[in-house]
């Protein structure tokens, strides 16, 4: 019904402006950091427009300005050809802009309906607003495949459904322009496909959609035009059909990027890690690893593929000394204790195992601590960090951090900055630097590129391969099948706490691995 009203309005307004949004000369600085520099962009009405750029390129800042969260230092915003100042979110909503944030802005213990009407109620009493919203929602879900139970509590919904609620919120406010900030980061591939179908449906109804992402595949799949941002500036806008992932990646990073990992064939040496019948029970007594056996040789990357939650995390935790386990594990012939004394992160590190945990925010870093403090974690007893028996040599630690930051191209290279102030990719580089620079015999690395931008992904992949070429053993756990396929020398698929056999990345394919990940296999 909202659409009809709007198309009517467009027909009467004589020449329909071609652009739904035009940003002219937008600049925004946070203290010394210039987040946006003289940004110009024009988004044609009724298109899906991608904005791509690495983490920290200024995409989110730009969209926050468009949504009235920040005020630009200079520049102008034109909506439908009209100069429209947007000092706050309310003005943005009035101008027909809806935003779906990366972190949803939903009230967890409210129903879908309550979340949808919040801030857009019709009057001081709720009942009429709720009744109206129920009707509108029924219409919207019919038109756009946006089915959600209006009476469900948000906390009971899957992430994909929560995102639909966010889209419904925007549509309920009659948004004609929908901005989605990294919408697929939290979605399964299926949910992402569904989202793109919804977006296409919205586009067909004449809505304008801005899709912010750092995933090239999504841009290629879903957008009509794409604008590329790099370090606060807009480096170009191209038609998606006339571009390629390689050319976009180059625009994003400012140099040629290898989307494929370049690596020589492995030359496996002696067995470094031998795992026999490893079993892990979680705190509820549920068996999460049901007796798995494998080995990794020097100079070899073993990739563990699988849908999240099939025991990969427990495997890393058990080998990393973070979880008690049973079975037999030897590192270069020496037994590793799996429970009791010696089964802890510290002992594992001194045994020569470095660990880049899956969840860097919970186990890899302390976000409120500085970069140099984070570099010390796990290695704080290192003699070179000690001044004397009582005090640590913080200056040495800072200098060491500075050196690591230079080697790993961490930006900005400031050791005294809190870990939370770095982008995801740079945070991960700090963790990887800390672990790899220790020259371990075995590297455990989980989800090495989760929430990491392209430039950093390329860098981290290169480092992993370089470590392998130095003759180290690497256990790689990732839910990204692409990553597993391109990095691994051997692939094991995990399903329900078991290994579903080994595959050679040269001879297997995504389909075969996908079946194994779903627990279907001819063997075992």
């Amino acid at each position, binding site marked *: 019904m909202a659409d009809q009203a709007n198309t009517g309005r467009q027909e009467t307004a004589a020449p329909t402006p071609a652009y739904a949004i035009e940003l002219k000369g937008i600049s925004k600085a946070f203290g010394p950091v210039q987040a946006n520099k003289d940004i110009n962009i024009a988004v044609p009405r009724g298109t899906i427009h991608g904005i791509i750029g690495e983490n920290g390129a200024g995409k*989110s*800042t730009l969209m*926050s300005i468009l*949504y009235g*969260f920040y005020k630009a230092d200079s520049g102008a915003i034109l909506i439908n050809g009209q100069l429209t100042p947007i000092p*706050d*979110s*309310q003005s*943005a*909503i009035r101008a027909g802009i809806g*935003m779906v*944030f990366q972190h949803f*802005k*939903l*009230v*967890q*213990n*409210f129903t879908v309906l*309550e*979340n949808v*009407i*919040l*801030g*857009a*109620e019709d*009057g*001081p*009493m*709720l*009942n009429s*607003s709720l009744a109206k919203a129920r009707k509108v929602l029924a219409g919207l879900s019919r038109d756009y495949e946006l089915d959600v139970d209006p009476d469900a509590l948000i906390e009971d919904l899957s992430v994909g459904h929560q995102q639909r609620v966010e889209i419904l*919120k925007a549509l309920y406010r009659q948004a004609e322009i929908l901005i989605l900030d990294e919408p697929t980061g939290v979605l399964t591939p299926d949910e992402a496909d569904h989202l793109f179908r919804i977006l296409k449906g919205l586009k067909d109804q004449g809505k304008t959609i801005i899709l912010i992402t750092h995933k090239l595949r999504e841009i290629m799949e879903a957008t009509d035009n794409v604008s590329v941002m790099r370090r606060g500036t807009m480096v170009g806008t191209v038609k998606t059909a006339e571009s390629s992932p390689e050319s976009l990646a180059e625009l994003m990073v400012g140099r040629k990027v290898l989307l494929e990992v370049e690596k020589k064939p492995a030359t496996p040496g002696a067995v470094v890690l031998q795992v026999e019948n490893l079993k892990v029970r979680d705190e509820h007594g549920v068996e999460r690893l049901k007796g798995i056996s494998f080995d990794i040789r020097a100079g070899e990357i073993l990739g563990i593929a699988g849908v999240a939650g099939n025991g990969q995390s427990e495997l890393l935790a058990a080998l990393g000394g973070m979880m008690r386990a049973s079975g037999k594990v030897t590192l270069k012939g020496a037994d590793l204790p799996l429970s009791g004394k010696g089964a802890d992160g510290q002992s594992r590190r001194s045994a020569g195992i470095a660990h880049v945990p899956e969840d860097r925010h919970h186990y890899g870093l302390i976000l409120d601590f500085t970069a140099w403090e984070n570099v010390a974690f796990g290695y704080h007893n290192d003699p070179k960090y000690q001044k004397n028996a009582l005090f640590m040599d913080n200056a040495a630690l800072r200098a060491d951090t500075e050196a690591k930051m230079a080697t790993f191209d961490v930006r900005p290279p400031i050791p005294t900055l809190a870990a939370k102030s770095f982008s995801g990719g740079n945070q991960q580089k700090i963790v990887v630097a800390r672990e790899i620079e220790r020259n371990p015999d075995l590297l455990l690395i989980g989800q090495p590129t989760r929430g990491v931008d392209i430039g950093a992904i390329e860098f981290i992949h290169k480092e992993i391969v370089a470590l392998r070429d130095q003759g180290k053993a690497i256990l790689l756990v990732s839910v990204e099948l692409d990553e597993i396929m391109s990095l691994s020398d051997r692939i094991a698929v995990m399903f329900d706490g078991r290994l579903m056999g080994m595959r050679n990345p040269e001879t297997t394919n995504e389909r075969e691995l996908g079946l194994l990940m779903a627990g279907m296999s001819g063997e075992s």
Partner: protein
Amino acid sequence: MDYATLLQILDSTLRLGTPLLLACLAGLFSERAGIFDIGLEGKMLMSAMASGAVAALSGSVWIGLGAGICASLILAGIHGLASITFRGNQLISGVALNFIASGITVLVAQALFGQGGRTPPLQGAARFNPIDLPFAEALSSVPVLGPFYAEVLSGHSILVYAALAAVPASWWLLYRTRFGLRLRAVGENPAAVDTAGVSVVGLRFAAVAITGVLCGIAGAYMATALQAGFGREMTAGRGYIALAALIFAKWRPWSALGATMLFGFFQALALRPDVVEGVVGRKVPVSLLDALPYILTVLVLAGFVGKAIPPRAGGQPYVKER
């Protein structure tokens, strides 16, 4: 224990539970909006002194009530300024206000009246007097319910009925109005409210103001209805008991009524050691009875009442993020 005694105890329960109920609802509004308020006690105390003093000076209990509400609102405003505008620590602000109230009330009362920090005894129109509900006499002959109506429900001051009416009113406001929806949302996820184009600061100040008004009524009730004048530390920890009741009630208005009346019942029992002795069959020290509400408070706060999930954004100042 016979029915008449039970009615007497229930009558005291209502009388003693009323300030707890008002304070509990006060805390409910604040905490539902995400502002922890440990300063309920201080606001009540401030209001008790202000209302007692002004009622004594003016001779009108209504002017006293107004003064009490104003005094409580001032403290609420300071708490709002500290915790909303300046994003300070809400616990520290609350504790500080309690200390200020504890000292300033005695100081002002002493300066005004020179009676050792008390206000003069209130009489007549300077006090809220009991009112009889209609037909209390006529209905008292109806078995069971009649005496309950006449003895327990009837014969309280107007503020008791106001407190009881505040329960459904709060429920209605929270769950049936736009304001209530936004207020609950701002305590759960202020970012959701902010992105919806509604002022987080405005909502939180509104909530804190309601807290101020309700605490003001609670304090005025203490000094001008429950007792006849202000005395040093006369709230005796009721603000903290109300906070415990709030957790017990899981931040819901009707449960708040039940929880505060339970605490009120224990306070009423402490007044009747003879009854307790009759029921238990042995002498129970009065000091133990006096301590019962506080023991219950500790048990509640220690989490013996099951899982109580506070508003998710409670205690955290709202900072816009990217």
